[in-house]
């Protein structure tokens, strides 16, 4: 049987419920400026009825209560976003690394390896055409020194680029571990809250933000569980589950196809490949030039050094340009050797797969530039896709102020009506008490 004060209790429950609904709307408005906030919606439901007999069995309504505070979110869009974020992370990291590789060569430039290589062979042509000219020997010496320095600098820049990519990968591995630990901690809090019947929406928002940040670093497979926790896999390796976070330092990032960690691994590999090709160029230059030059009058090698980082002029030649050979006969006007050295410019080199020295270098800079071009194009496409996905997510989960203001008005009017009902119920009760009290 409903109590005398059922009406008062009904009106006051309505007041409380509409107050909470306004609070939810207020919470949405307060967070309207955040793109990582998921709008919440107060789902009201009818309070349990009260059965009573009056002639027959009746079910009397008890008003309204707050059923749940729901997050308005699309799991499908979340998964699309995670995939896109890992593509963006990979693209950004690899494009940055590849850009550094291209800048290591600095082409086209009058100070680049291409121009230096050209000047080197040009100087041999000039010496071969005028072997008696001492200035031409100095020119060859200077051109050889400049070329080797330029190759050294490029090798240093490539080494630095590779090391920077690896250092960034190490730093981001720590970041990824931190995020995984954070997600695991939030998992625990969310499971506890949901176990107590609560809707920890803000904790879920925090967890989603961390998942998004981790997605930028690695491709994730996120599997929601019934208890509110999530399982996160990186590749096929479990990263986070209900028990906690795994040790991510053992993951081979280079084997993954997305994420900034894989991007930096890819960039480091590209830098290493370019460095190897530069080493091949330096070795071929040294070997081909020395093979000819050492047959000359002085018998000296022209170049020294084991690789691109250490390539230099032979110390004797560096100290005395007179040891630079133009011919093999000892005659002042013999420039045949120098002319042959000039022809190395276009000669096929076996150790370079039959390419000439210039051809091999052109292949290197073409590949470096193509890599940047492709990475930047891919990144631009992923950015466009990101804008579309973000728009779709915001369309579902973002806060529209006009909507919230309209809801606020609705709850305000409902609250006013409930307050008026409470007032009337109160007056009725007061009348009843007044009658009984006489």
């Amino acid at each position, binding site marked *: 049987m409903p109590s005398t004060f059922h009406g008062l209790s009904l009106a006051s429950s309505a007041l409380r419920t509409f107050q909470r609904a306004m609070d939810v709307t207020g919470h949405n408005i307060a967070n309207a400026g955040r793109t990582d906030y998921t709008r919440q919606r107060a789902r009201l439901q009818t309070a349990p009825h009260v059965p009573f007999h009056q002639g027959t069995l009746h079910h009397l309504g008890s008003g309204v209560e707050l059923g749940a505070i729901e997050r308005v979110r699309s799991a499908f869009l979340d998964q699309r976003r995670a995939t896109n974020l890992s593509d963006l992370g990979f693209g950004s990291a690899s494009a940055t690394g590849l850009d550094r590789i291209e800048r290591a060569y600095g082409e086209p430039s009058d100070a680049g390896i291409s121009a230096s290589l050209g000047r080197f062979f*040009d100087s041999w042509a000039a010496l071969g055409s005028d072997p008696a000219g001492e200035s031409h020997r100095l020119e060859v010496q200077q051109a050889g020194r400049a070329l080797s320095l330029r190759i050294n600098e490029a090798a240093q820049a490539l080494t630095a680029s590779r090391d920077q990519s690896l250092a960034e990968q190490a730093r981001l591995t720590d970041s990824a571990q931190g995020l995984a630990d954070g997600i695991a901690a939030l998992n625990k809090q969310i499971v506890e809250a949901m176990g107590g019947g609560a809707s920890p929406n803000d904790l879920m928002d925090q967890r989603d933000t961390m998942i998004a940040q981790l997605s930028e670093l690695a491709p994730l497979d996120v599997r929601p569980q019934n208890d509110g926790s999530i399982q996160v896999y990186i590749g096929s390796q479990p990263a986070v589950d209900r028990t906690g976070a795994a040790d991510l330092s053992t993951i081979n990032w280079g084997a993954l196809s997305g994420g900034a960690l894989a991007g930096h691994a890819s960039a480091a590999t590209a830098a290493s490949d370019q460095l190897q090709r530069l080493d091949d160029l330096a070795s071929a230059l040294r070997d081909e030039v020395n093979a000819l030059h050492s047959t000359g009058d002085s018998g000296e090698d022209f170049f020294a050094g084991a690789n691109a980082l250490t390539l230099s002029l032979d110390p004797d030649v560096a100290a005395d340009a007179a040891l630079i050979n133009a011919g093999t006969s000892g005659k002042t006007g013999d*420039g045949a050797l120098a002319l042959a050295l000039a022809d190395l410019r276009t000669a096929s080199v076996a150790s370079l797969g039959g390419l000439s020295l210039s051809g091999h270098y052109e292949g290197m800079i073409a590949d470096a530039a193509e890599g940047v071009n492709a990475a930047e194009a891919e990144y631009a496409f992923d950015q466009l896709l990101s804008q579309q996905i973000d728009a779709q997510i915001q369309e579902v989960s973002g806060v529209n102020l006009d909507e919230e203001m*309209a809801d606020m008005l609705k709850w305000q009017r409902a609250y006013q009506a409930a307050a008026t009902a409470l007032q009337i119920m109160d007056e009725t009760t007061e009348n009843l008490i007044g009658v009984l009290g006489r």
Partner: protein
Amino acid sequence: MRIAFAHSAELMKSRLSGAETRVADIQRQISTGHRWDRISEDLASGLAVVSADRYAQRIAKHERILEQARGRLGLAEQTLADVGDLMNSARTLAVQGATDTLSQTQRDAIAEQIGLLRDRLVDLGNTQDARGSYIFSGQSLDTKPFREDAGSLVFDGDDLPQRVAAGPGRELDLTIANADSAFADAYAALTDLESHLRGGDTDLISRDDLAAIDEVSERFRLSRGRVGSSMQEAERLLEHHQRRQDELAAEISGHRDVDLAAALTDYATAQTAYQAALMASARGNDLSLMNFLR
């Protein structure tokens, strides 16, 4: 379609940034004069410019080599011309000396002049360029090619070739072939002429000496002709290189340089678009339900 408040703000920022970037990009093009700075920005053009730059640099070097070679050839040609004049003078004197009506004293005077011409011949054979290199000594540039020894001219140079890198895959031969034998034979002809003049052997002068002078003069003319051909070839190659340089400069410019008129138009358009975006952004968020609530 729902428009979220935060997202519309992000979109506004992103569009403004895009418009601003476009303006900055065109500004860079105008101030540098280049459409792109790195090869990756335009792969095909970038690689074409690297290749063309290198080729242009190479041709410039060949031009300098050819100019130097032209100088050397010019000196050789002038020297051979001087030798030709010398031999003509000797022939004229020989004709005079072969005249029966001359006295022996007069023939001795002519013989004296022939001796001087012979000395001059040796000097011409040992001509040096500005650096002191002997032009007729083959590859032994620092060796004086001709010396007099027991009445004959001895050649101490060599007959090895002298070539210069005249162009990509192209060499020009500067060798003055058979110079040693021509000078030696000219020396012998003048020596014989002097001897016959002093001996009064006009028959020998008419029959042998004139023929010898003519024969060696022809050889010098041929040598001079060959040197002249080499000079013409050097000139032709220089003209060819110059044309190629002009073509390469145009090619490089076509790949790299920005069309300033088009860029200025694009700049005006981009600026206008940026201003419009700024204006739209400023006014776009004016309207809200909050404006109408009491």
